C-alpha cells in the first residue's frame, strides 16, 4: 500500500523549504491581522478552512486538474486564461502570477521539459503563469501523480498560511502544529469527494480578497499578498 518513492517525492516538493518563494505570500493573513480581523488560533483555523473550502477546493483544485490532464500546451494555457478570468482581484491575480512564475522558474532550471516549453509561452503573455496551473506543470515534470499533486497544492497553501501567521506573531510554534493538524482533517475531508469533471472554477472568499486587495495601500507590508 505505502509507496515509498511517491511519499519521498511528496516530502521533497511539499517541504516548506522548497525554494519557490512561498514564504513571501500570506494570502490575506497579514492584511487581516493588521485590521484586527485575525487574532489567534481560532481565527487562523477559520481562515485556513475558508481558503481550503471556498477557494482551493473549488478553484485551484479544478484548474490543477485541467492543467494536469491537458493534452498540450495550448490546453494548459486555456486553463491558465480561465484562472485569470476567474480572479477578479488584481492583487490576487498578481500574487498567483508571481508565485506561479517563481515555482516555474525553479523547474525550468532543474530541466523540466514541460516547464521549459511553457516558460517560453509565458514571455509572450503576461497573463499566464497562475499558481495552480504551474503546479500541474511542475508536478507532471517531476513524475508525480495527480492525487499526490492535489495533496501538494493543498498542503503548500496550508503551510504557507500557518507559517505566515507564526512570523506575524498571530500564533506560536506549538499552536502552528495544532493548526496544521486541523487543516489536515479539512483537506482530507475535501479530497474524499471528487468534483464533477465539468465543474467551472469559482471561489467565494470576500474577506480574503478584500484583505489582499488592500495590500498596496498599506504602508507597513512584509508579504507579497
Amino acid at each position, binding site marked *: 500500500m505505502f509507496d515509498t518513492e511517491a511519499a519521498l517525492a511528496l516530502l521533497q516538493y511539499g517541504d516548506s523549504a522548497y525554494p519557490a*518563494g512561498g514564504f*513571501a505570500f*500570506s494570502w490575506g493573513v497579514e492584511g487581516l491581522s493588521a485590521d484586527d480581523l485575525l487574532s489567534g488560533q481560532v481565527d487562523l483555523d477559520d481562515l485556513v478552512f475558508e481558503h481550503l473550502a471556498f477557494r482551493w477546493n473549488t478553484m485551484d483544485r479544478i484548474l490543477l486538474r485541467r492543467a494536469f490532464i491537458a493534452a498540450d500546451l495550448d490546453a494548459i494555457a486555456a486553463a491558465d486564461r480561465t484562472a485569470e478570468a476567474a480572479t477578479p482581484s488584481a492583487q490576487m491575480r498578481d500574487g498567483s502570477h*508571481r508565485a506561479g512564475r517563481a515555482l516555474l*522558474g525553479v523547474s525550468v532550471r532543474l530541466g523540466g521539459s514541460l516547464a521549459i516549453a511553457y516558460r517560453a509561452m509565458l514571455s509572450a503573455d503576461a497573463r499566464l503563469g497562475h499558481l495552480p496551473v504551474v503546479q500541474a506543470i511542475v508536478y507532471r515534470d517531476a*513524475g508525480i501523480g495527480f492525487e499526490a499533486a492535489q495533496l501538494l497544492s493543498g498542503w503548500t497553501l496550508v503551510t504557507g498560511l500557518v507559517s505566515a501567521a507564526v512570523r506575524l506573531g498571530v500564533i506560536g510554534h506549538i499552536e502552528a502544529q495544532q493548526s496544521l493538524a486541523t487543516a489536515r482533517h479539512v483537506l482530507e475531508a475535501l479530497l474524499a469527494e471528487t468534483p464533477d469533471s465539468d465543474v467551472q472554477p469559482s471561489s467565494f472568499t470576500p474577506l480574503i480578497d478584500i484583505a489582499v486587495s488592500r495590500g498596496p495601500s498599506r504602508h507597513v507590508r512584509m508579504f507579497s499578498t
Partner: protein
Amino acid sequence: MKQMLTPTKPARISAARVGIGGPVGSGKTALVERLIPALMARGIDIAVITNDLVTAEDAERIRRSGLIDPARVSAVEAGACPHTVIREDPTLNIEAADELERRFPGVELILLESGGDNLASTFSRDLTDFWMFVIDVGGGDDIPRKRGPGVIRSDVLVINKTDLAPYVGVDLDRMHREALAVRDNRPVLMTNCRRGEGIEAVVDIIEREVLFRA
C-alpha cells in the same frame, strides 16, 4: 519517479547581478544612490532591486531620487525573511531580475539591495555574480573581529560612514587592517556615502571584477 530531472545550464544571463548586503542602517541604500550616477557616468546600463523588510521605502526612495527611471527599480517583499530571500530561496529575486532584463534588454548590471540583517547574511551564488557587504563605522570597530559570514565571505567588504570615526572613537586604519586580516586580504573599501567619498573605488572593482572591463 517516472523520469529523472537533469539540471540544465541556466539561460544566458545577460546582466551581471551584484548583491549589496549588510546590517540595517549601515548605508546600503545610500551606497546604491551613490553608485547609480557613478555607474551611469561610465556608460553602464543598470537596474535596481530592493528587498525592503517592512515597507517599500527603499524602492520608493530610489524611484523618487530622480537618479534612475523608476520603472527600472523593482521591490521584492521578503515575508519577514530577509536572509531566505537572498540565500536559501532566491527565486523571487531571480524572477524580478529576469523580468527587468526582459523589459530592459540592454541592461548590463542589476544592483540588488538586501533587506538588512545582523552580520550573518550571505547571497546565493545562483542569485548574484558578486556581492558586497556594507558595515559602518558607527557600529564600532569590533565588527570585523566578530567575523560574521557577511564580513568574511563577501567579495568586497565596504566600511561606510568614515566621517563618523571621530565621534564614535574608531581608529579607521586599525579597523581597515583588522578587516583585511579576517578576510585574508580580500578587498576592503572605505566609503563616506554622505559626501560621496570612496565611491569611485567601488565602481572600479565592479567594472573590473564583474563587467570585466578596463
